[in-house]
């Protein structure tokens, strides 16, 4: 994992030339910690919405005809377009992360702006629905 030599340095910031927070030994440790933390956060999201989906499943099973009838009220076009908008915004934000890794600031700002715009469009369609 970490070599004792890398740890014994008294100046944690000067070692690799890359920035990292003072309590980490090197930037790899910081990067790995942050991605593990993000995965764990996603786990909590799965559990959070899992509870909601469970409730949905129970009632869908109990009241199948009512769910069937209400599904016919769906505006297919609005729903389909909104799905595309949502997925596209995930794509632009993923590209933004990539741009940040490359240090391409201009691209990063543009992609984040595009993500924001798609988010507004999503909310707009939801309001219309």
């Amino acid at each position, binding site marked *: *994992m*970490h*070599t*004792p030599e890398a*740890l*014994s340095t008294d100046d944690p910031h000067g070692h690799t030339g890359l920035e990292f*927070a*003072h*309590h*980490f*030994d090197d930037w790899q*440790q910081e990067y*790995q*910690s942050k991605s*593990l*933390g993000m995965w*764990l*956060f996603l*786990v*909590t*999201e799965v*559990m*959070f*919405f*899992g*509870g*909601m989906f*469970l*409730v949905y499943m*129970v*009632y869908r099973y*109990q*009241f199948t005809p009512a769910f069937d009838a209400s599904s016919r009220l769906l505006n297919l076009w609005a729903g389909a377009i909104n799905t595309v908008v949502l997925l596209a915004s995930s794509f632009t934000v993923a590209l933004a992360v990539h741009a940040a890794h490359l240090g391409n600031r201009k691209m990063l700002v543009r992609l984040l702006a595009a993500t924001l715009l798609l988010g507004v469009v999503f909310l707009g369609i939801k309001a219309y629905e």
Partner: protein
Amino acid sequence: MSAEDKNQPTAAQLAAPSLPKKHYLNSRYSPGSWLLTKDHKRIGLLYLMSITFFFFIGGAAAVLFRLELMTPQGELQPDTYNKLFTLHGITMVFFFLIPAIPAVLGNFLIPIMIGARDLAFPRLNLLSWYLYMVGGAFTIYVMLAGGVDTGWTFYTPYSSTYSNTYVMATAVGIFITGFSSILTGLNILVTVHKMRAPGMTWFRLPLFVWSNYATSLIMVLGTPVVAIAILLVAIERGFGIGIFDPRLGGDPILFQHLFWFYSHPAVYIMVLPAMGVVSELVATFSRNRVFGYRFVAFASVAIAVLSFLVWGHHMFVSGQSIYEGMVFSFLSFLIAIPSAIKVFNWTATLYKGTVTFDTPLLYAAGFIGLFTVGGMTGLFLSALAVDVHVHDTYFIVAHFHYIMVGGTVMAYLGGIHYWWPKMTGRMYPELWARISAVLVFVGFNLTFFPQFILGYLGMPRRYHVYPDGFQVLNVMSSAGASILGFAYLFPMCYLLWSLKYGKPAGDNPWNAIGLEWQTTSPPPTENFTKTPIVDYEAYAYPGSIIH
């Protein structure tokens, strides 16, 4: 250099221990250096103060209703009584027991025990304290506004249809506090995975770290589910959408499933870290390696996993099918195995150890006895037939207080005494502390043992009146509560006294093994002047057998 050499006190320490010149407490003094601190030790102390505050609020409510229960007809209005036991349950469970050990001792100790400079995400750590305080502020608001009367369990339809009290505000407060414990759990998991010092392998981790790791798994997996359950109650109350109300097509039992899917594991959030504390105390004060280290470590993880599979035992009499009941009953029996492994292994550690009865060990011994009683009565409750007789009686109240108060609070107090010299640099007065440990034990048993009998005789929980025949046992219980109340105030007084007048402790007053005892007391801001390198097993006391 072997572990023994490192932990022998040096001649200078033996002469006259003194406080280090520069440490985390005196490095800066401004209020901002506390309120915006990212130091895990200072955040641990912030938690210690706020948790103590909520503990005494919850305790005050208990004093009031124990007074009421001295006489069969009581003095309080039934509504007031309902609000008091709800206040007691909510503050004790969500604002004291769940965060107590992970957020105070865990926060302070885990980075030091694994040889790190801080938790992986210091800012998130501070945020989680603020979320806790915001959630706590809601609870205070609810109290001032007039209280809530649903019980800490928020069962629908009490909480959705029939309550006219401040359910929404309470729900929001608990929802927010839930995120505080999710963040603490996430932080501990990442820290244990990624921040261990060189040589600190998984099987060299102190068992306190293992049990907090298992606790954090439950916090991360379970808390979101109770958050959504409480949110759904709020949606039903606020917008009249029939999620749990049968008149609108909802199902009230579904709430119980969602609630207990978290809240049963939450019981293990409370007791697992306590078991970790007891492992440390037993090892130090018997000067012996914890017997069957790996079994104890894996028992924590086994408890965390099994805890998610037993929630149905809260619904044996709620119309659940007999097959479900049998499966949940069997799984509830299974979880007794890892718990019993721990109890037997602590006992085996004490056996042939060199035992000294300092205050922390008195608390740990109290824990082992009371936890065993609490656990064994848990087996009564997980038996389908017996549960029908004692369900929703004082038997169950006694059972879970033996686990939560006899278990968790004993271990918490033991841990506070054990690590007090590390946190503050000063020793507490040993004689007073031993008296308080004995008082807690006596007061606790006098309070809760009569409740087993009351419940078995048929006194239901959450009633403000009872038949005359139950008065003797109720008076015993209230008398015990008055001893217990005093025994909890007492340590707060002498611990505060020791901040100024306690003897300087030195780095390792217990002559214990573990990284936290290798740094100064109190530790410097970044815990160690040089990252430690670990080349020995946990609890490598001279003469103990290492497998």
